[in-house]
């Protein structure tokens, strides 16, 4: 039994290792992961971390001549006033300008008579990339407003603090590491993709590919049990999945150590070698499950193309809960740790957050994930025992 499994397993590994193009394909997402993740962190980090931005704010202003004092105030606060285009609304809608400040003609009159003077900030709140600019400008305008208000109250002999019934102070306890979690919590989903794509080509080649080449019928005539054939083929894809995870971890490790992410974003991001190693170990049961699950699905497909189409969706579907984790973090409990893939995703997030993980959660999750892999393999064996497995022409 073990001997025949080894014969089939070693043949499939040799056969697929020679397929350089598929091998590169199976590593594609491993290579893309760090190439995607690190620029994403830098771009989004710079965009959202507006306090770190020291560059002057460029603000096109319509009717700057109506409010010389306001304009002077803005200029003192690191704003460069620019001429506005003829159609400011269109310019903002099209994304050519981030914001436009409009000071109406009646501003001066309202202001001198002590009424509330109106200014307009033309902005597109659906563009999150302009968030920092919009917030900066509005903060400056409110600052000016309360400064003038306070002066007016003082001129009437009233303490300005009377109108400020509440002083809201926000105390931010987030660490730089936890701020950066928003991006890093994408990592579990990306790793799931790496794992599934890593083993996908081998699974397809040994199932749908074998059938498409017409080598399945001759293989099944050999004195080997179907269970041996299925187990060997499932095992054959595992080293390729592990290789994909290793390449991805190496890429992330290299990226975080070579790219000065901290300097570029003002966030402190640290992933130690130990963390990378722990993540790698947590990934291993998922690799086994990926092989088993893809084996079952590929068995249903008739051709290489069909298999590729369907298996392409698998990481998306099984990784969906993990993707939600990036947007709404979930506290880990033993019950949740038992859910295959989702449990591992939460553990990886814990590691990235610098929290200590409970060995019980790791082991329990690994056990259920491996159990799921065994169930998948048993289903695949059942499928291979059916006569329809040939799906050839029955003449």
């Amino acid at each position, binding site marked *: 039994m073990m001997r025949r499994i080894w014969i089939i397993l070693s043949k499939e590994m040799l*056969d697929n290792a020679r397929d350089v193009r598929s091998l590169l394909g199976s590593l594609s997402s491993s290579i893309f992961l760090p190439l995607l993740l690190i620029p994403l962190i830098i771009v989004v980090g710079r965009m959202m971390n507006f306090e770190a931005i020291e560059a002057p704010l460029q603000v096109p202003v319509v009717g700057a001549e109506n409010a010389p004092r306001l304009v002077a105030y803005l200029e003192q606060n690191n704003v460069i006033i620019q001429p506005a285009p003829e159609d400011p609304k269109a310019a903002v809608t099209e994304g050519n300008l981030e914001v436009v400040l409009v000071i109406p003609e009646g501003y001066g009159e309202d202001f001198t008579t002590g009424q509330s003077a109106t200014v307009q900030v033309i902005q597109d709140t659906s563009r999150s990339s302009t968030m920092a600019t919009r917030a900066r400008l509005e903060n400056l305008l409110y600052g000016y407003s309360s400064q003038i208000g306070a002066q007016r109250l003082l001129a009437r002999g009233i303490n300005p603090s009377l109108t400020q019934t509440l002083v809201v102070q926000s105390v931010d306890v987030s660490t730089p590491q936890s701020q950066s979690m928003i991006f890093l919590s994408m990592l579990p989903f990306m790793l799931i993709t790496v794992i599934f794509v890593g083993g996908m080509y081998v699974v397809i080649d040994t199932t749908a590919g074998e059938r498409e080449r017409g080598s399945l019928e001759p293989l099944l*005539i050999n*004195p080997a049990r179907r269970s041996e054939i299925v187990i060997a083929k499932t095992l054959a894809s595992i080293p390729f999945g592990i290789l994909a995870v290793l390449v991805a971890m190496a890429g992330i490790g290299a990226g975080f150590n070579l790219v000065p992410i901290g300097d570029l974003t003002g966030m402190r991001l640290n992933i130690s070698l130990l963390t990378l190693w722990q993540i790698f170990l947590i990934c291993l049961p998922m690799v086994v499950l990926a092989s088993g699950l893809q084996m079952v699905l590929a068995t249903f497909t008739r051709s290489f193309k069909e298999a590729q189409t369907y298996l392409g969706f698998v990481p998306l579907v099984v990784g969906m809960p993990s993707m939600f984790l990036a947007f709404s973090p979930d506290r880990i409990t033993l019950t949740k740790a038992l859910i295959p893939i989702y449990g591992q995703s939460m553990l990886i997030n814990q590691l990235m957050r610098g929290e200590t993980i409970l060995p019980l959660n790791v082991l329990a999750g690994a056990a259920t994930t491996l159990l799921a892999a065994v169930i998948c393999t048993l289903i695949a064996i059942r499928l291979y025992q059916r*006569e329809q497995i040939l799906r050839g022409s029955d*003449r």
Partner: protein
Amino acid sequence: MIQVTNLHKSFGKVQALNGVTFTAPDSQITGLLGPNGAGKTTTLRVLYTLLQPDQGQAMVDGHDSRRDTLAVQSAIGALPDQRGIYPRLTSRENIRYFGRLHGLGGSALEARINHLIDLLDMQDIADRRSNGFSTGQALKVAIARALVHDPHNVLLDEPTNGLDVMSTRAMRQFVLRLRDEGKCVLFSSHIMQEVSALCDQIVVIAQGQVVASGSADHLRQTTGQANLEDAFIAAIGSEEGLVR
């Protein structure tokens, strides 16, 4: 020796086999002759344990294909309808893979592979990856791997399909040689000349039933036709009636 008794097999509503019975003795070439869709491949697939008959029995050297699958698989060498080889493996590696699955190994296996490479005259492709092989070259690999364990019973499903004249001649010589070695050779074909030139015994199948069997002479006599082609058509025609 192969004994097939009253085989029935249906796929959904299609009755592929409807009581096929014949015997293929040792040291003889038995030809399964029939039009496409007659049930030749289905019969062979029952023999190589890939299909379970709904009724009836297929025996190879006394082993029941339904129960003793591993024993039957060890006793047969088959060139099935689908005969794909692994394009990223060399001819030798393709043959070795099946040899190892049959429990062979070491120098005995390598000697056997070399013997088959000589026998099939495939020295030039022995250590080439089989990607891009011609039909004839690929067929040689498929036959060599089917015979790597020196099976006593050889089942060939339309072995000359897609071959050129020279390769077909070589194939026939090879089949005759197997018979002279005392093997039980069962091969299916829809080509009359091939069957008449090679076979000691012909089993004519149509619509899942054996409609005639015996030597070529016997078929000509029983149908009253001078040549085998007419005999063949007469045999099938009597079953298909007006449909033909």
